[in-house]
């Protein structure tokens, strides 16, 4: 159970695993999404062998 004396701000502070903060973690997800789109676009172009 979470500590009832813990404030909201306390839960938002500090490192989250290998990430220094929640903000860093969220930005890593945003960058990850951009990379996903880029990789899939490359995938689309490289593996398009349409004769049309």
């Amino acid at each position: 159970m979470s500590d009832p004396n813990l404030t909201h701000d306390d839960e938002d502070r500090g490192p989250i695993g290998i990430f220094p903060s929640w903000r860093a973690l969220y930005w890593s997800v945003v960058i990850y999404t951009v990379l996903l789109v880029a990789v899939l676009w490359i995938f689309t172009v490289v593996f398009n062998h349409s004769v049309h």
Partner: protein
Amino acid sequence: MSPIDWGVFALYFGGVVAFAWFQSRKNEGVEGYFLANRRLPWAAVGLSVMATQASAITFIGTTGQAFDEGMEFIQIYLPQPLVMVLLCVLFVPFFYRAKVYTAYEYLENRFDAKTRSLTSFLFLVSRGLAAGLVLYAPAIVLSVIMGWDETVTILIMAAVTIAYTLMGGITAVIWTDVIQMLMMFVGIAVALVILFTTLPDGVGVGDVAYIGGIQEMWTSIDWSWDPSNRYTIWSGMIGGFFLALAYFGTDQSQVQRYLTASSLKQSRLSLIFNAFLKVPMQFFILSIGVLLFVFYHFEQPPLVFNNAEVAVVMESERAEEYRALETEQATVHGERRTATLELLEAREARDDARIADLQTIIADRDERLVELRQEAKGVVSEVRGASSNDVNYVFPSYIIKYIPVGVLGLLIAVIFAAAMSSLDSELTALSSATVIDFYKRWFRPDASDAHYLLVSKLSTFVWGVMACFVALFAGQLGSLIEAVNQVGSYFYGSLLGVFLLAFLWKPANGHGAFWGLVAGMGSVFGLSLVTEIAYLWFNVIGTVAVLAVGIAVSAATGGPDATGGKGAMGAV
């Protein structure tokens, strides 16, 4: 299925049910039944979130869709990582700190009782229908494998699932989901490996990629702006964003999951876990469909994959016509197979001129085979008097015929277990909304915990029966995965609009939220009748309509204090 497959199936199925029974002993009271006493770790919650979304429909409908249309469906999943971030920042803190049982309970604190009741009612309608479709998917597999009538199959599946859900409660459901999800990962990997091993000798990964590329089956990003085109990067990133935000942020079947976490941090981590894993998982599932497309370049596929539908045609006056289509398919497929094998040799010899000629032949035969399939499905539809949902039978048809003994039982078990865990979750969510938002709120606000627990289990049973009725009519819908999303799209955008109004617009009041919701749904239904806009855009339209009307009505009716709500931060 062989006795070994039945043994594997029974072992896994029995094990999951026994595990659910073991976990059910930990249930204590309504909070235990619906929220696991808010003590679960993020990994379990995260896997449960993923398992709830990825049901048997994901395996059956999505792979079939990729077989017919390629990878483009993945675009709908691309915004999900961003959605998870927004949920962590905006939605989860409000829900978690409000200590609510349902997402809609929060809306009464923020707005008023009528807004809570209407949103909860919409959830019950849309999710009640979706629960029926989730039940229908594994029933298809069972009917194909065992030759049972789908109605009988649905009834048997429903009975087992309802009993399992009543026994479980959310603790059992989530821990069972963990097992189901891990098994799904194994099932995806096994299916991909088996597909490669059933290709002819010498056909490698590069060859598979090349053959699929001739028909643009690997196309994952479509930049076109056509709003009637169902899957583009824009409909995916915008329409899919709103759909996913509405689903994960306002659908009780998901909100209930992250409310069971032991802290706000654990809730957030469960969603971030999904942010990183969901798209890769969906990529591999869709790849199974494209691999099937390539596989059937070397093995002749059925013209129509639904054996039951074909049997009806063969008993009709159109049987000869159908046989003629089959004969032509065999000829064209043979030509394509020969050209494909020659293409592989030409690639090895680096004979570019020959490669170009063979690509043209393969593309030409591909197009004719697609036309023949459409003609055959047209015959089936005319004979049956209903559209063919053949796409949902593609993957089951493959695993029955080509998967080795033992592995078949495992894959069938994975599909069933996945479906049951999703249905479990939905029945629990439907039950919580019914009991907390209606029964306790309007009829018996002061009853004992034991009474509510009893009513909760009774409600679970009733919703299970309702899902059963919906499932009996699901066969008339198209691809199941689209059907589920379409049902949601009629309501989800408007539901999302109400929650965004609550979180983001401090002057909003209950009148604004309620009439905004009505206007949002009216807009979606109206536009769906008079335009050809792809269903993903309904979510955007509904959300925008609710926000516009909600803000205007709130301003016209006296601001935040007009309906007795506690204001933007009142419930936190």
